[in-house]
Each structure stands twice: as structure tokens, then as C-alpha cells.
């Protein structure tokens, strides 16, 4: 009886897992087969013929054939990393300030930051477009980075504020009586302790920038600044849609994100145990 229970439990788990992963699997499979097969009815689950045609076209050495995926990838990498680094730096300092200092209107400012998150990004697209066009940063990586930093900072503040709060304030106090300035205490003690939390915040910020579509679709216009999610639209022609190409570029998007998450996650889990304080 117990055995049956266990087996049926595993079947259920497997079933749900497949269900959840289905779209992902479909994308992967479709990236490696010719376009007509994707549209076959009834669906053809296992490709008859595997091909990396889409990838060679995107990344062909003598210049791309279909879509400049390499350029998009580079744009994505640069925009996401730079905006993450900036957002984390600013957000971390903000989070620290909220966690450690008392200042006038602290709670209101904090609430304001959270409310800013509640505004749907797309509602800002038109004002942003006009503004950016006026000051001439439309269709630049800089413009996109600016937007992503603004998007990520409040969330990073909120997240790191929580992590800094968890560190007893005696930690920095003892460091300061040990001869540190406030900054040294932060750098040598509080930052290493908040490391895992900041790592988590960084992943969130990076993924948000990496996957963002709505605003980028308005601010970026050409190869010069388009990111991968926008580049995907290049496969949308007037009369046809190159599903295989789209799936292939989706794979290019998904793989680095997944790898990155795995790498950083390992650090997060192996993170520090708080033994310095009583226990």
C-alpha cells in the first residue's frame, strides 16, 4: 500500500514537472528542427531531422544571414550587466541607509520607493520615449541602462534593507571600536555578511533586465541597441513567422540566464552561517 502511494506520488510529480517544463522543452526542440515540422499537425514531438541551421545563420562567421544575434547578445550582456552593477551599488547603499540610519521621512520615502514599483512600466513608455528622444538618448544602450537601473533600484533597496537588518548592529559597532571608520566597518564586516543577500538581489536585477521587453521595445530601434527579446521580433516578417529562428534566439536567451542562476545560487546556499552572535 505504502509502495503504491509512493509510486503514484512520483508519477504525479513527474507529470507536473513535464507540464511545467513543456513550453521550455518545446522551444528547445523547435530550435533544432526545420520550420515546417514545427507547424505540423498533429504535433510532431520528436524531430525527424535535427539541425543547427538557425544558429549558424545567426552566428555565421561571415556576417549573419538572418538576424544579428551576436550583436543582440552583446547588447543584452552589456546592458544587463552594467545596469545590474549600477543598480546593486546604488540599491545596496540605499538599503544600508534604510536599515541603519534614522532620518526624517524615512518611512515615507521607503513607501514611495515601493509605490514606484507598483506603477506598470509600460505606462511610462510614452513619456520616456518623448523624453529620451528630446535629450537624444533614444536607441542607445545608455538609455536602456538608465531605465533598467531606475527599475531595479527600489527593489534592490527593499531586498538589501532586509538583509542588512538581519545583521546585528553590534557587528558594525564593534568594528568601529576596533578602529574602523563607518565605511571600513561596512566594507570589512557588513558587506561580507550581507553577501548572499546582495547576490540574490543581483540575480533578480540581472534577470529583470535580461528579460525585459516592453520598455526596450520602445526605446531601442536598431541593431545599435536592441536586446535579445527585441531581436526576437526580427523573425516576424510581414507574411511569415520564422518560428524556428525565434525558438533558437530564445534558447540563446535562456541558456546564459539559467547557467548564471545556477552558479550564483551555489554561492547563496553555501553562504554564511551566523555564528558570531549568541546561539
Amino acid at each position: 500500500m505504502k509502495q503504491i502511494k509512493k509510486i503514484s506520488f512520483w508519477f504525479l510529480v513527474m507529470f507536473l514537472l513535464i507540464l511545467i517544463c513543456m513550453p521550455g522543452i518545446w522551444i528547445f526542440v523547435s530550435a533544432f528542427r526545420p520550420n515546417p515540422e514545427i507547424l505540423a499537425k498533429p504535433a510532431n514531438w520528436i524531430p525527424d531531422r535535427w539541425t543547427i541551421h538557425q544558429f549558424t545563420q545567426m552566428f555565421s562567421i561571415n556576417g549573419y544571414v538572418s538576424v544579428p544575434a551576436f550583436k543582440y547578445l552583446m547588447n543584452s550582456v552589456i546592458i544587463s550587466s552594467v545596469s545590474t552593477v549600477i543598480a546593486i551599488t546604488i540599491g545596496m547603499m540605499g538599503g544600508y541607509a534604510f536599515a541603519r540610519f534614522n532620518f526624517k521621512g524615512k518611512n515615507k520615502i521607503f513607501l514611495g520607493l515601493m509605490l514606484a514599483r507598483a506603477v506598470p512600466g509600460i505606462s511610462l513608455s510614452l513619456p520616456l520615449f518623448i523624453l529620451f528622444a528630446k535629450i537624444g538618448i533614444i536607441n542607445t544602450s545608455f538609455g536602456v541602462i538608465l531605465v533598467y537601473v531606475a527599475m531595479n533600484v527600489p527593489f534592490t533597496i527593499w531586498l538589501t534593507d532586509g538583509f542588512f537588518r538581519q545583521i546585528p548592529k553590534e557587528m558594525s559597532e564593534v568594528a568601529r571600536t576596533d578602529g574602523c571608520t563607518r565605511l571600513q566597518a561596512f566594507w570589512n564586516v557588513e558587506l561580507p555578511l550581507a553577501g548572499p543577500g546582495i547576490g540574490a538581489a543581483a540575480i533578480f536585477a540581472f534577470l529583470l533586465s535580461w528579460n525585459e521587453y516592453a520598455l526596450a521595445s520602445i526605446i531601442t530601434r536598431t541593431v545599435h541597441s536592441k536586446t535579445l527579446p527585441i531581436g526576437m521580433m526580427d523573425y516576424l516578417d510581414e507574411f511569415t513567422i520564422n518560428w524556428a529562428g525565434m525558438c533558437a534566439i530564445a534558447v540563446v536567451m535562456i541558456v546564459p540566464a539559467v547557467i548564471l542562476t545556477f552558479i550564483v545560487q551555489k554561492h547563496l546556499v553555501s553562504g554564511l552561517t551566523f555564528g558570531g552572535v549568541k546561539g
Partner: protein
Amino acid sequence: MANVELKNLTKKYGDVIAVQNMDLFIPHNEFLVLVGPSGCGKSTTLRMIAGLEEITGGEIFIDDQLVNEKDPKDRNVSMVFQNYALYPHMTVEENLGFSLKIAKVDKKEIEERVKEAVQILGLQELQKRKPSQLSGGQRQRVAMGRAIVRRPDAFLFDEPLSNLDAKLRTQMRTEIKKLHQKLQTTIVYVTHDQVEAMTLADRIIIMKDGYIEQIGSPIDVFNNPVNVFVATFIGSPPMNILTANIIKKDAKLFFELDENILMPCPESKFDYLSKKENVIIGIRPEDITPTISSNSSENIWNFEKNIDLVEPLGTETQIFIKLNNKEIISRMYNQREIKIGQKIEFSINLNKIHIFDKDTEKVIK
């Protein structure tokens, strides 16, 4: 070598007064203990000396230098916190050497001084461990080691032993005392623990609501409390306190401890007390004992009373009686058979009773 001086020190948090007009001179090498009920401003005082708390008013001098504007890092005092606050991401060794590393002392000397502290505190086996791999007592020791390594002008301890179990606490207490003798440094030590205060202190400060109630050597504070608060705060079990009417009889004064129990008032107090209707009487439990036939000297006064409760503790027996409806504890050091409800004779040494004004609660000299 450093003394610490506080002049008119005040700290307010908004409307809350944490420390009020505190004046204090701590000479070099003194072991000063701050005691007082929770929230009386002990930690705040310590943190102001360390520079971790901004002061609202007054001045702090360390080694005769005004340090009001100095950062904690420039005050050269070490603080040991109740929760130890060891750096969790560093080994014991790194914890100990951290302050020197920040001060950019060269590696050789750091090693030597860490080694010295390790030896003083017996941490040899633990150098490579992280704080999470240490027991409470060991963490406590590392925290003290970290304070020692800097060779500070003064140590500030904020209830350093209160997270340890009773046995370890006793052990660490002796170690702190030895450490003080070895290091010859000024120590300001905050504690809740009576025994710690009495055994460690050169001088004790009893605080209440941000004020200093009394300063003195442990024995002085114990024998001559200046008010009811200090009297009941120092000593365990606490001093018995009861209100008694003053009765005039044959040109003499008596305190009515209970119906038909009249304790003679010392003659020296006649003048002051003849104008009063009642007073607060304080008697330490050890000064009110069941009469032994031999102890009838001049200043001993006896009375009889029924026993409410008996608690034998081995070395002593605590006897509970009621006087003026207040529970009174008496300590008996000989093991004599006593039953609840029994009426026995008690002796009070009249030289040792404390008399306080009913209104001001201050001692009547």
C-alpha cells in the same frame, strides 16, 4: 594608562531621558561596575563613552582629553557586547587580529599579539575555527581576546556574562578579575548580577532612571545604602522593608513593627523622628535571626512571632514571617528543627537596622 571622566553627561531620545546629568571620575585601573534595573541607562552610558551614541549634553574625557567629537575608532577603548558580536566570517585568529590589521600594524607584530592574547585566554586549540563552531564560553573568551589585543585605554563590558550558564559565569567572573589584575586597565562593567557586581567592583554605581543613586565600594554600598532603592537593590535576598508607626512611650520612641511588637528606636534618631508619624524600616534577612541563647548583648532586641513558611537551603534556612502585613525573610545559619505555625523568638541587632524617611525614602542619618 587612562582615566575616564564624565561631566554633566546627558542623553535624551526625544522625550525619553536615558542618562541625566551624570558626573563621574574613574581613576586609572579602577574596576567600576554599573548596576541598576533594566532601562536605567547603563548601556547608554557605556555606549556614549565608546562613542557609539551621540551625547545630548555634557563632556567625556578619556586620559584627560575631551573626546566628545572623536569617532569610536579614535577613542582607544574596547567594548565587549552581551551577544559577543564576533565577526562570523572570520576565524578566531582573524577576529583577534582584525583591529591591528585595520590599524596597519605589521604582520609579525599582529601574530605576536594575537598569540599573546590566545595564551592569556587559553584559546590555543581554537585559532582556526569560525565563531559558529565555538561554545558560548569560548565565544565570550574570543570577544575578550579581541578587546585585549588592541591594548586599549579602557575596557567597556556590557553584561558580558549574561548569556552563559551559572557555572561558566562563575568561572569567567574569576577570569575577568584575574585579567584585570594582569592588564592593569580601567574597566567599566555593566551587569544585572549582584554577585558579579559585589565580587568584581572596586566601586559600584547604582543607577535608576538615568540618575546615579549611589557610588561606593561594594561593602560601603551594602552597609550604608543611601535610600530604599539602593537598600533593596543590593543584597540577595533583598533587604526587608516595612513601614512602621512611631510610638511615644515614657519619653522614648518605638517602631511598631506589628501589633504589640514595639522595637526601640536608637537614641541618636530621637530628635529627627519625634516630629514624624511613621518611617520605613529596613532589616537585612541576616540581621533578623531566630534567637540563640548566647546572643543576648546590649543592642540585641527580641520579639516573638509565628512562622509562615520555612525553606531549608542547606547552608542556611530561610524563615518567612509577617510584620505589618509585609512578608519578612529571616536567615538562620544553624540547623534547628522549626515547624510552620510555631511561635519562636527572633533577634534583631539594633545597630544594623536601616531607617528611611517615609516621604523621601532617603536614609535618616
